[in-house]
């Protein structure tokens, strides 16, 4: 926002702005018994994202609006929220790409305990992530040198290395909403990243963990996770590959 001044002199014409209405699901645990909807009118530019509109509301209209964001460029995965009924990163969703003739509904992601406004308790999500051993499990190499990997072997798990742990997938999953014990798509994606890594020796351990009634077999292939992923990971495909690896007994 602060850089806008630098861009303007080159094109002196006035950039058209328009008014967007955001309806935000607010919840303050110290005041509210249950969440309530509140609407805000914000003047925005076609280049603005939902996150910019939230900033404008917080800075100019209501400082009590609470949400998480860190890098604001789709890398840190802090600002996953439900925008017009679908999980999106607020920092990667342009307002002009939404239907601006209607109000924009913004609410917290579903299935995790709501703490305040757009913030949920992410601990159950990270607990599942920790359970699948999200680190390289390998002993020392014989000659003490590096672990070599061919480009083909690297490509095998490339898709699942892109995860930023924003929880957009896990909190879009109908199974996770009703059954919080389910590991959820994000944990399985991160297990997939190591199970199919040729340098890793812990595939058996991870397949054992996920071969559980709360593991991969809870997946009902609704594809909400694949649609929600801001990094375009084929999440349901990764889960299906883990299912097949369990059936075959090897990665």
């Amino acid at each position: 926002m602060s850089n806008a001044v630098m861009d303007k002199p080159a094109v002196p014409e006035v950039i058209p702005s328009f008014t967007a209405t955001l309806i935000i699901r607010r919840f303050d645990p110290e005041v509210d018994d249950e969440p309530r909807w509140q609407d805000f009118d914000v003047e925005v530019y076609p280049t603005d994202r939902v996150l910019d509109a939230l900033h404008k509301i917080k800075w100019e209209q209501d400082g009590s609006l609470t949400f998480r964001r860190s890098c604001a460029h789709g890398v840190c995965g802090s600002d996953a929220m439900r925008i017009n009924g679908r999980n999106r990163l607020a920092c990667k969703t342009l307002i002009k790409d939404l239907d601006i003739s209607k109000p924009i509904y913004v609410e917290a992601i579903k299935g995790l305990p709501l703490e305040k406004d757009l913030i949920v308790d992410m601990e159950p999500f990270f607990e599942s992530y920790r359970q699948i051993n999200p680190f390289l499990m390998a002993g020392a190499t014989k000659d003490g040198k590096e672990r070599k990997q061919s480009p083909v072997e690297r490509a095998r798990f490339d898709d699942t290395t892109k995860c930023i742990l924003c929880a957009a997938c896990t909190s879009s999953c109908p199974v996770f909403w009703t059954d919080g014990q389910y590991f959820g798509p994000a944990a399985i994606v991160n297990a997939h990243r190591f199970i199919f890594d040729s340098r890793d020796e812990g595939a058996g351990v991870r397949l054992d963990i996920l071969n559980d009634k709360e593991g991969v077999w809870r997946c009902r292939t609704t594809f909400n996770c694949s649609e929600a992923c801001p990094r375009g990971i084929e999440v349901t495909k990764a889960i299906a590959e883990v299912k097949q690896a369990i059936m075959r007994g090897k990665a």
Partner: protein
Amino acid sequence: MTAESVSTVSAERRTPKIVTPRRPAGTVYRGREGMWSWVLHRITGVAIYFFLLVHILDTSLVRVSPEAYNAVINSYKTPIMGLGEIALVAAIGLHALNGLRIIAIDFTGFGTRHQKAMFWVAIGLWVVLLAGFVPRQLMHIFGGA
């Protein structure tokens, strides 16, 4: 007096902010083909389960009393039951066709990439199936044939 004025002030302060609650539980998640195919699969699956329960009971009745079996089967030959049969064929047809799609998704990479197209193919085949069955069944119910 004091308590009253405090409540009035706080009410005034809060009034412009509070909009009539619209679905405080949140909006319905706007899933796409995959989510709705799962919803339909679950609904038809549960419905078929209850049909099979009744079907096994009425069929096993023939071992108990053939007369009672005939009475029950005759009660099925009413227009209401005829329409129910249309619902039954529709549910089983959809569950079967979408079931083939799910098998393809679980066992092939092709299936996960083309699940949306496969959903619409399943719906298309289902419509063809019903187009063949429903007119004949309606003639059977209401034509007295």
